[in-house]
């Protein structure tokens, strides 16, 4: 089954990779051919949907403009008795999805593979929707996408009675524009604003302005290994390197469409301020760059001492250094007596400048990691793996920032540029140790038992030098502090489980898990309340599964997962339960062959998931600020496949997804974030065998998506169609 599919996302037009090809496999002699090599699949799709095309692309990961081309291609040929060439390809115009891959395999010599692949991920450029005045503030409202490209070479030399050598190289890129959840402020919410701040019981300000991130990332990696087995001992040596060059730029837009009047609206007598007079806009960008080079050397030894005992050890050393640079330049327009000025980092007397800076620096890291372990089988039914992992992690860095500010005197319009130098530094040393045990027992005929345990303890000394600026009259003040924090962490994870099959028709599995984590921050320096505290969090839960072959043609698979987590913060204010999370998931799959020519598969998942933090604990107006985070949903799909005749298969499919966590009433106090959306699809697919070398597939469907959280601005609905021809040669 090939997975290169169009019209896809499970809750999108079709449910799962299996569906697109309408694969109704047959065992009989007239079964549909399966093209494993030397074939080409040409296909295309179109989706004339109405509504938000950007949302369509984001949620279906399919171009709204249609897709077409070579969906899959394979050419396999024996160049000689011992030399084989395997070529794979894909060219899907409109989707930015390409593959060219050539692999040579020579018996008793090795393999060489080189290729390039590229695929596209779609995003949209939306911000938040505010229901009180039905406000939706798209800045560009354009479809966005990011392309991932990868050129790779992979070679293996496997000469008889010689070490095995491997070499890998890859050059990966990630370019394009994507959305972010870092939204900007707006007062255009319809919530009244008084010139007397004491009358603003609930601020009008909501962060609903969309933002986007331009990516320009490249990563080169290479690795060479040599492995050789000497008697019962296998040795592997490796050396590798990497180079990362990233320049990512985030747009910053705040209070777009607003501008404070000058002279300012007086607060006495109090008056209502038009919402577009509430703040001055900020517009600019934040660009972060990294140029990192690193290398890694390592080795692994594994030796089988006896049939019962195997020892193994790994040791790695990594060194990397990175040049870091950043520029955050944000203009802050404001009105003055002589008109509009718009300098970067503007501020007025006693105010805070719009946060702008440039910086350069360097970070180095040296990491030594090793582990040693034993695999012990005292009897055939008992397996024990006990290991110890250690790490010495040292990171040092320095950064020199120059804050860019412009002091504005609104009475005259005079702008005075100012810069402030502010260094930052890091000296971090961390040594985690992790013992781990893995036990399995299969001595009971119909049961397997297992358990795992690991305990990571870390002692970390982190020293930071930090300078920043704040408001101070007609200038800005640079404050500096040196923090030395000692961090102790204890992370303990454990599982126990069993797999039970008393009869062939029934299988049951159960696993209990627990995570007990504790972080203790202590130290000295100019720390604020909140810097130093103890954090305890515990997670426990269970996974239960059952498979029942009720009839030879009917199977039920059930999975239930329950998880409960609690986090506790202890500091100068006392001890409080910071987080309380509860999650319950119930999944069911039914596979049914009502006749030998028909199958039905139905899946459903029901999820209740909520996170509670401040809501039950704070008082007064604070209770309205933040409610619990509900992440509940249910989704499911059903497919029916039929062998219509010797040459035709038919498949019907439907999917459904619903999340109902959106509460518009919260808008009075905050921005409702809960997901409230619904999505459904129906499809009909046909697959027709022209002859033993040619198969035609077609699928049509209809999809409908509504989203309350975005006020319906990202809804879309409409038909979609797909057709392909698969031909073997």
């Amino acid at each position, binding site marked *: *089954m090939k*997975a290169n599919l169009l019209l*896809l996302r*499970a809750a999108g037009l079709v449910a*799962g990779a*299996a569906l697109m090809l309408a*694969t109704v496999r047959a065992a009989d002699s007239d079964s549909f051919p*399966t093209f494993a090599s030397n074939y080409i699949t040409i296909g295309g799709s179109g989706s004339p949907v109405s509504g938000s095309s950007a949302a369509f692309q984001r*949620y279906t990961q399919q171009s709204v403009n249609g897709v077409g081309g070579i969906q899959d291609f394979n050419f396999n040929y024996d160049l000689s008795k011992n030399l084989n060439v395997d070529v794979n390809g894909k060219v899907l115009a409109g989707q930015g*999805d390409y593959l060219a891959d050539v692999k040579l395999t020579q018996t008793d010599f090795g393999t060489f593979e080189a290729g390039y692949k590229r695929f596209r*991920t779609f995003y949209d450029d939306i911000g938040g929707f505010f229901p009180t005045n039905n406000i939706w503030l798209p800045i560009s409202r354009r479809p966005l996408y990011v392309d991932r490209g990868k050129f790779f070479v992979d070679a293996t030399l496997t000469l008889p009675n010689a070490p095995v050598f491997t070499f890998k190289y890859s050059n990966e890129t990630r370019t394009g524009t994507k959305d972010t*959840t870092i939204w*900007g*402020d707006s007062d255009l919410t319809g919530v009244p604003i008084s010139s007397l701040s004491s009358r603003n019981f609930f601020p009008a300000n*909501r*962060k609903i302005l969309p933002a986007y991130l331009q990516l320009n990332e490249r990563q080169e990696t290479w690795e060479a290994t040599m492995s050789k087995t000497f008697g019962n001992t296998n040795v592997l040596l490796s050396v590798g390197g990497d180079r990362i060059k*990233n320049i990512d730029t985030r747009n910053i*837009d*705040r209070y777009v469409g607003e501008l404070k009047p000058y002279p300012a609206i007086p607060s006495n007598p109090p008056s209502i301020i038009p919402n577009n007079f509430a703040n001055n806009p900020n517009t600019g960008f*934040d660009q972060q760059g990294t140029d990192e080079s690193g290398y890694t050397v390592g080795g692994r030894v594994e030796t089988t001492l006896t049939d019962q005992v195997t020892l193994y050890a790994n040791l790695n050393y990594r060194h990397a250094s990175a040049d870091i640079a950043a520029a955050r330049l944000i203009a802050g327009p404001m009105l003055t007596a002589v008109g509009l000025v718009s300098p970067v980092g503007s501020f007025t007397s006693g105010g805070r400048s719009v946060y702008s800076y440039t910086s350069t620096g360097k970070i180095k890291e040296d990491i030594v990691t*090793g*582990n040693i372990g034993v*695999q012990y089988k005292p009897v055939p*039914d008992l*397996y024990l793996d006990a290991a110890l*992992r250690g790490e010495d992690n040292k*990171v040092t860095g320095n*950064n020199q920032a120059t804050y860019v500010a412009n002091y504005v005197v609104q009475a005259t319009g005079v702008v005075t540029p100012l810069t402030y130098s502010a260094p*930052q530094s*890091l000296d*971090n040393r961390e040594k985690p140790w992790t013992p781990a045990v893995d036990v399995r027992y299969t001595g009971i*005929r*119909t049961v397997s038992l297992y358990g795992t345990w690991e305990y990571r303890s870390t002692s970390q000394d982190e020293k930071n030098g930090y300078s920043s600026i704040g408001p101070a009259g007609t200038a800005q003040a640079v404050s500096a502090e040196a923090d030395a924090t000692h961090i102790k962490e204890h992370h303990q994870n454990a599982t126990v*489980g069993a797999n039970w099959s008393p009869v062939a028709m029934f299988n049951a599995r159960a696993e209990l898990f627990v995570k007990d984590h504790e972080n203790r921050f202590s130290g000295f320096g100019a720390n*604020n309340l909140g810097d130093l505290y103890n954090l305890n969090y515990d997670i426990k839960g269970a996974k239960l*599964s059952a498979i029942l072959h009720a009839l030879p043609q009917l199977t039920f698979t059930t*999975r239930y997962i329950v998880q409960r987590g609690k986090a506790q*913060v202890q500091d100068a204010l006392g001890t*409080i339960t910071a*987080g309380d999370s509860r999650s319950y998931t119930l999944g069911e*799959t039914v596979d049914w062959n009502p*006749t*030998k020519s028909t199958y039905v598969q139905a899946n459903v998942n029901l999820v209740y998931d909520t996170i509670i933090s401040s809501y039950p604990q*704070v*008082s007064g107006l*604070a209770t309205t*600020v933040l409610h*619990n985070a509900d992440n509940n949903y249910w*989704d499911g799909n059903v497919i*029916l496949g*039929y062998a*219509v005749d010797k040459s035709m298969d038919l498949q*019907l499919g*439907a999917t459904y*997804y619903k*999340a109902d*966590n959106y509460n518009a009433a919260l808008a009075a106090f*905050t921005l409702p974030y809960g*997901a409230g959306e619904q*999505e459904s699809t129906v499809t009909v697919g046909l697959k027709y065998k022209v002859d033993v070398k040619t198969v035609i597939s077609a699928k049509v469907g209809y999809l409908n998506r509504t989203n309350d959280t975005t006020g319906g601005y990202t809804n879309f609905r409409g038909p979609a169609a797909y057709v392909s021809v698969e031909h073997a040669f």
Partner: protein
Amino acid sequence: MMGGAAWGLLLISCMMADRTVVAPPQIPGATYVGTKECTHCHEEETGHFATATHAKLAIADAKVGNTGCEACHGPGSLHVKAGGGKGTIINPKKSPEACFQCHLDKRGQFALPNTHNIYNGNMSCSDCHDPHAGNAIKGTGASIEAENETCTKCHTAEKGPFIFAHNAMKEGCTACHNPHGSVNAKMLVARDANLCLRCHLEVSAAGTLMAGSEDHRSRLNSSTCWGQGCHEAVHGSNISKPLRY
């Protein structure tokens, strides 16, 4: 929808062919041959399977069903008979359906609007999980890798190190993101400030909502903690201790 499907079934039931079909990813006509058969050609995959997470499900009594290679790859008799080949065995790298047979919850999560796209052939479960050796969740236990490498090998901008680290990164990316899918953008486990307050919540005797030394009640009115102008650099910052980029 169900009604439509039933209608379709009724419509064509009178003209069905006499062929056996099964729902994917099963292999019709194939029978189980046992893991030993697989080792003849696939030593690289089977050599360390005893250390793999999935090996713990192995049951001694083979009569109750296969719990080795064929549990995921399907019965291998046709594959063995053909001397190998792509078309006669299930390749979970090409389709997640093999994994979803047991991990039903993951099927539901990958059907959500915010997820990694594993259906278009460009990503697969095995990009993050190695079913053939060691821990299926990389970087756990005493393995030599770091847990976050699973994510940062592709998401290099979030890798760090940073001058000012966010300690949450040491808890793993999954502390804040569900890589299998979420109802929330960016696969966040919570879309609002609850995400951060789970670890940063401090409450004074007066009931103020503290995070650090400041009452954040009015700030949470307008946004998440990582909204513009606040703690945008959630993965770490080289300039700002409060993670403002």
